[in-house]
């Protein structure tokens, strides 16, 4: 069947088989290999992407059901600059080891930055509990998210006094 949807801001129309899940559609049909197919039954979180602004398991969504939807992958999130600071923290703290879980981790962590600016470490761990890192590098990942949140909090309170618009533009 034919579907038309928006992926990372670009409108695409493709023929898809009903048995195609979103991750295979992104990787095999669109060549967007940033999203990883891990367990393919909803447990590991490596396939986390956004559909209509909310994070989902890409392996538990039929591509065929997404006619008219808006999908954002790690490629689109990176290009937007929305999480550039988080990605810098991932690099600085070696929060990506083998890197397989990293795209999903960054997508899930971006959800914390966007919706839970006051998350403490326990809340960060809870929010990321659906994403496996089989290198077990969780400590560095949680540190990276916590550091990004506190950096943003400092900037936000500093900006509030100056009416600085750059933070807004970056979001």
């Amino acid at each position, binding site marked *: 069947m034919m579907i038309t949807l928006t992926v990372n801001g670009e409108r695409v129309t493709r023929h898809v088989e009903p048995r195609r899940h979103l991750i295979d559609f992104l990787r095999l049909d669109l060549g967007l290999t940033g999203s990883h197919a891990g367990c393919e039954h909803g447990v590991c979180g490596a396939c986390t992407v956004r559909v209509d602004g909310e994070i989902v*398991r890409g*392996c*538990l969504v*039929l591509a065929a*059901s997404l006619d008219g939807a808006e999908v954002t992958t790690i490629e689109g999130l990176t290009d937007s600059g929305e999480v550039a600071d988080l990605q810098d923290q991932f690099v600085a703290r070696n929060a990506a080891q083998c890197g397989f879980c990293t795209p999903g981790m960054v997508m899930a962590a971006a959800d914390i930055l966007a919706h839970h600016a006051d998350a403490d470490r326990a809340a960060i761990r809870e929010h990321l509990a659906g994403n496996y890192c089989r290198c077990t590098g969780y400590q560095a990942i949680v540190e990276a998210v916590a550091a990004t949140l506190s950096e943003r909090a400092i900037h936000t309170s500093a900006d509030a006094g100056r009416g600085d618009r750059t933070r807004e533009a970056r979001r």
Partner: protein
Amino acid sequence: MKWPALGYLRASSLDELWRALGDGAQILAGGQTLLATLAFRLSEPGTLVDITRIPELRGISVTGGVLRVGALTRHAELGRDALVARHAPLLTQAVPHIAHPAIRNRGTIGGSLAYADPAAELPACAVALDATLVLAREGGERRVKATDFFTGLLTTALEPGEIIAAVEFPLAGPSQRAVILEVARRSGDYAMAGLAAVLDLGADGRVTAPRLTFFGVGDGPVLATRANAALEGRALDAAAIAAAQAALDADLDPPADLHGPPAMKRHLCRVLLGRALQSLTPATEQAA
């Protein structure tokens, strides 16, 4: 593994849905369980019929003295809805236990109830809150109590050609106390054992109409009738909690599973019962 070959149809109204339901048709709502079973080849439906764009199955409202939750309500929506928080606070408490944020953004209450996983939170909440399911079919609907809806392992009272349209919860009164607790290997995983507890605590400190409902320890939600009877009419003190724990053993017949033997599940249930009732005990009792 990859999903089997299958068909896909989207119904945009109930009329379209009735026409689409037939041999080999499987209803697709949030898909967070169904699509995983495809990957295991545990199910091979001929055609998935997507109901997520049928407006009649959406929405949360208070009508006719009940809280009506549309079948397509996603777990994340349930967790942040003000009407739910006010009239069925057990559900608001339950949502953070259901899988993970990305799954809560897709999974639906109707799907969870229809799948009837014995370790899932919402079927147990529906029983604990004495909810009524509204089942729709072509040309009509009927209402079934949650206690009668779950008939066995992954089995419900749904007839072929019937779907869950909504769930109706009685409105929580000011004396209702509710809590949900579970033990899981990883936050968000299915419970090894869980308890959805609802009771009324009168001004005199006495319990009425307790509905302790366990999950993950049977072939569906387990309403602990003997433990409930042991609590009825008593002040919620240490003696009453001990009596409920003693009575609980006869309510349970947990199967052994991946997590451990029946004796371990019985132990977990006793501990959960103690913790849950302790958390509902008035502060004066706790100090005593």
